[in-house]
């Protein structure tokens, strides 16, 4: 019951703020949505604690029939187990803090429709909660598309900016590419199992091991195809390489949006899907190998790009992309628990980083370019400290939360003892170095050195109001302690008791056990490279600031390659967008207008011409008519004589 309240309270808040926001005003809309969120987080956390303390048991809350067609039957139902409870607790808490932070951040919004913003935020929270608490794939897809809609609305919140409109559209459409894979995956699950309810599907995993599906001229095991199709969906939502292009552009939305959607919750939906579907995926080694490969590549790719970006939010966006890659590496090597553990810690420290960046942007009069910052650390000490905390957690420095979860992923990649697992290991290790490097590059460029902003901006630099800093402090508590607090339950010796039936793995999967026994150097490597990354950043940007420029001058092609984000946008524009535009024009002007319409129009013209010619024969002269009759008679008689006798 508490669980259901936690999920539907945000919907109530969103509906009130959205439908009556104009009438009741901004303050009331804020109050309503935040009260609903507080209620939701209270219920969400209690539901989680009750489940873990054993006061209540996991189960399914059925809400009624949704879609029905023959044997295809889908209910509206909430699944209450360890995985959904931990996600609900995390999402409601982070979302509540971000709602509160938004009061301060959006106070000076020139748009004067703050109620709209809060309504969207709550709508997003509701969709995300539906996603994580779904009891079947279709309801998960409902939440999945719901967060897509909410993120579209939030990215496009400043609708009068052309760039915001474009970014919103891009996010939705790129996600739709992945969603197509997801939808096909759901269809294949139904085709294989005859149901898309989690309990039915997971209960029947053993029976369909040898199910085959014929596609692309080959026959594959159905589980592998399911895994790949669902992962294509996850790639879109979780911004993995190839379908990541929307995430950096999505920074057009207000900063709290970036924190909520593009760090803590929505983008992790793909990782959640992998963990949720672990009972099936664990029997699809080929698909898991693909997951690891893409995850590792993304982790490395995004980290390299993050090193050259100058927009403070884009650096963090690429960092998110990279960390999501880590989570997929974990899922790919079978350590689903570690992926959710990292998802949880990442939610806290990445939300903290984004909100801190928002605090910086707020202080700098809406400046986002790090080249125009610097020298402000004494002016906003609290924000500065929070940035440090967030980056220490992200960099995996001991006893901060990221240390526990990120190291676990790197160890699991090594412990998997497969080729692709080792590829994942090396990619994530290099990415760990780059992560530390760009994080401290961000700190130094933003806060240290000589002030590069203009005089006017510098005069206005101020610490944010309490309504913004208190959420920062609370998130910082999570960023520091979440790893330490949940390590033992989530991936330590107690994991079976903690997760219960929520994560079921194959008997042959003992990666969690094996990662305790990795060689000492494997455990030490992340820390060493992390510290090396920090040191490099200090050398490059504080002690010898000439190096980055010299490097860029020495390897201009490499620099441009990274600065332009590996030219993905340009590639897509050339290979997909422009050809599609030409094709669309061609099909319309040539296909429809010229060819398809040409035929009936041509026939009509021909008829018209023909009849205007025929009209000329009827000129009123009796002699002509009599002559025509004569010819006709001759013709008829000849035909009769020749053929019909």
């Amino acid at each position: 019951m508490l669980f259901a309240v936690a999920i539907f309270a945000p919907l109530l808040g969103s509906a009130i703020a959205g439908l009556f926001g104009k009438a009741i005003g901004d303050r009331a809309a804020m109050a309503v949505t935040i009260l609903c969120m507080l209620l939701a987080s209270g219920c969400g956390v209690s539901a989680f604690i009750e489940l873990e303390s054993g006061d209540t048991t996991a189960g399914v809350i059925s809400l009624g029939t949704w879609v029905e067609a023959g044997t295809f039957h889908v209910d509206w139902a909430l699944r209450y187990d360890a995985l959904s409870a931990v996600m609900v607790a995390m999402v409601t808490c982070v979302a509540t803090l971000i709602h509160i932070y938004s009061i301060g951040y959006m106070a000076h919004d020139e748009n004067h429709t703050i109620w709209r913003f809060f309504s969207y935020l709550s709508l997003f929270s509701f969709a995300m909660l539906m996603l994580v608490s779904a009891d079947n794939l279709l309801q998960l897809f409902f939440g999945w598309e719901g967060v897509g809609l909410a993120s579209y609305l939030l990215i496009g919140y400043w609708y009068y900016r052309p760039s915001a409109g474009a970014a919103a559209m891009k996010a939705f459409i790129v996600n739709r590419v992945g969603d197509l894979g997801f939808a096909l995956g759901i269809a294949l699950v139904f085709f294989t199992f005859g149901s898309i309810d989690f309990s039915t599907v997971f209960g029947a995993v053993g029976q369909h091991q040898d199910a085959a599906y014929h596609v692309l001229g080959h026959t594959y095991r159905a589980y592998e195809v399911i895994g790949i199709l669902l992962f294509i969906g996850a790639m879109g939502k979780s911004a993995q390489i190839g379908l990541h292009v929307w995430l950096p552009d999505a920074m057009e939305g207000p900063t709290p949006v970036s924190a909520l959607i593009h760090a803590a919750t929505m983008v992790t939906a793909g990782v959640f899907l992998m963990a949720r579907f672990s009972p099936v995926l664990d029997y699809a080694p080929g698909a898991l190998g693909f997951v690891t490969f893409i995850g590792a590549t993304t982790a490395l790719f995004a980290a390299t790009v993050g090193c050259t970006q100058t927009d403070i939010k884009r650096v963090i966006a690429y960092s998110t992309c990279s960390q999501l890659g880590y989570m997929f590496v974990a899922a790919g090597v079978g350590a689903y628990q570690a992926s959710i553990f990292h998802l949880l810690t990442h939610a806290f420290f990445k939300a903290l980083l984004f909100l801190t960046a928002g605090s910086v942007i707020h202080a700098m009069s809406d400046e986002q370019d790090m080249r125009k910052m610097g020298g402000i650390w004494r002016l906003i000490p609290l924000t500065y400290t929070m940035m440090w905390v967030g980056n220490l957690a992200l960099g995996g420095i001991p006893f901060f939360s990221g240390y526990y979860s990120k190291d676990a992923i790197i160890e699991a990649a090594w412990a998997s003892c497969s080729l692709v697992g080792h590829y994942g290991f090396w990619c994530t290790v290099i990415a760990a170095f780059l992560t530390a490097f760009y994080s401290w590059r961000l700190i130094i460029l933003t806060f240290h050195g000589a002030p590069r902003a203009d005089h006017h901006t510098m005069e206005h630099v101020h610490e944010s109001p309490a309504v913004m800093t208190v959420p920062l402090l609370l998130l910082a508590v999570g960023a520091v302690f979440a790893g330490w607090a949940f390590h033992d339950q989530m991936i330590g010796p107690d994991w079976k008791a903690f997760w219960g039936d929520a994560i079921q793995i194959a008997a042959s999967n003992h990666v969690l056990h094996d990662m305790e026994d990795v060689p000492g150097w494997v455990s030490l490597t992340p820390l060493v490279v992390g510290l090396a990354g920090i040191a490099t950043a200090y050398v490059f940007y504080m002690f010898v600031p000439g190096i980055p420029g010299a490097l860029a001058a020495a390897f201009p092609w490499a620099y441009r390659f990274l600065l332009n984000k590996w030219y993905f946008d340009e590639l897509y524009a050339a290979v997909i967008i422009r050809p599609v535009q030409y094709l669309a024009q061609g099909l319309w002007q040539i296909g429809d207008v010229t060819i398809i319409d040409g035929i009936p129009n041509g026939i009509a013209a021909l008829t018209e011409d023909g009849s205007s010619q025929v009209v000329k024969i009827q000129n009123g002269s009796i002699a002509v008519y009599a002559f025509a009759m004569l010819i006709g008679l001759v013709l008829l008689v000849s035909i009769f004589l020749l053929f019909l006798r």
Partner: protein
Amino acid sequence: MNAAGFPLLSLITWLPLLGGLIIMYVRGDEATVASNARWAALWTSLIVFVLSLVLWVRFDPADPGFQFIEQASWLPQWGITYKLGVDGISVLFVLLSTALTPICILASWEAIKTRVREYMLAFLILETMMVGMFAAMDFVVFYMFFEGVLIPMYLIIGIWGGPRRVYAAMKFFLFTLAGSVLMLLALLAMWNFAGTTDIPTLLHTQFPASMQTWLFLAFLASFAVKVPMWPVHTWLPDAHVEAPTAGSVILAGVLLKMGAYGFLRFSVPMLPLASAHLAPLMFALSVVAVIYTSLVALAQTDMKKLIAYSSVAHMGVVTIGIFTINVQGISGAMFQMLSHGIVSGALFLCVGVVYDRIHTRDIARYGGLADRMPAYALLFMLFAMASIGLPGTSGFVGEFLVLVGAFQVNFWLALLGSLGMILGAAYMLWLYRRIIFGRITRDDLRAILDLSPREMAVFAPLVVLTLWMGIYPSSFSVFWDATVSTMVEHHQAALAATVKLATVIPQ
């Protein structure tokens, strides 16, 4: 007699015509006539709608056969009877027709200023024809109503349409008539073979395999134009662009369903062998329709043309669903038809709202409407999302069920047929962005007014239906579940019988 206890279907069918007769005898100066005609038409259509709700309440979903049957002797020597009745496939289309008519009349309240009486009369005749077509249980009765629909629609486009209305009306009429002539031939052939035109009897008549193919092709010629399927779809964008708003609503909402309904009523159940053999052709045409017209929609600069092309793409999904001939596919097609009837109707109304204010459909003339018309922006968003097929709206259920159905046939069919998911998002959001997003740059847009109470009243039922069908779709699908299951079983039995026959004969 029937579940209602009185000749309900005849009443629903002919009452609009009676209302039309009353309107014809309205006298007075022009303003009085117009006002009286409007109110008379609205009341007539509302009474008809309320009567049709009896169908919703009293229809027995467990019975797969025809219900509310009424019969009168007409031409007994030819085996032709006046026979009406509805089954799971037709009942909701009757309701769709009766629900959209009052909405259309209300939407034309201020937009139509000339010859109001004749306009309202045309709409009421149209309603009679539509309801009669869906309720007909005799092929000849069906054919008469099917063709009869053309006349009022032709007049609505040709008289109250835009600048190129005559071209569009002629094109509409000739395209659809050319196809229908072949259906008439098929009708005669069937009558010649079976000796009756009674639809339930024909449903259980086994036509020889070679004859089935010819009949199927003749039906295809007629229904494909109505759907419309690629490549005979080009009448639709022209008709939509020139038709008045309410005309577009009925055209997209009900008239396009007539073709798909024909496939479900005649082609699939009566010609099982031909349907199975020619399904690949239908799939090919449908997949081309989905991809081709979605791309063409992307290139449009006229709002109505864009939505018209999107209709063709959505109907492509319907025809894929129908010819998968499994429960999910057909159920999805049914749902997609109803949903499209509501959502595309609503989208045309959305275009009508701004067209009534600014008098242009050129997308480039708009931009930044969110600023001045927040309620409109919200509604447009909802219907755009429903058109894209967002879960929770009506558009999703049908599209997804068709995907599930298609997947059981072939992976490629499912993949290519669902490309509309991506392309649909692209053209709808691109449209939305150009109209609603951005800054207002023109003075006339700066002074534009948000929705009036009358417009809200027009949209309200559509909003409710869109969400209701999206959140609780089983309350609709229950109507046709039994009928569709029976149809699929019947189809499989017919195919199995032929296979048995084929294996027996050589021995």
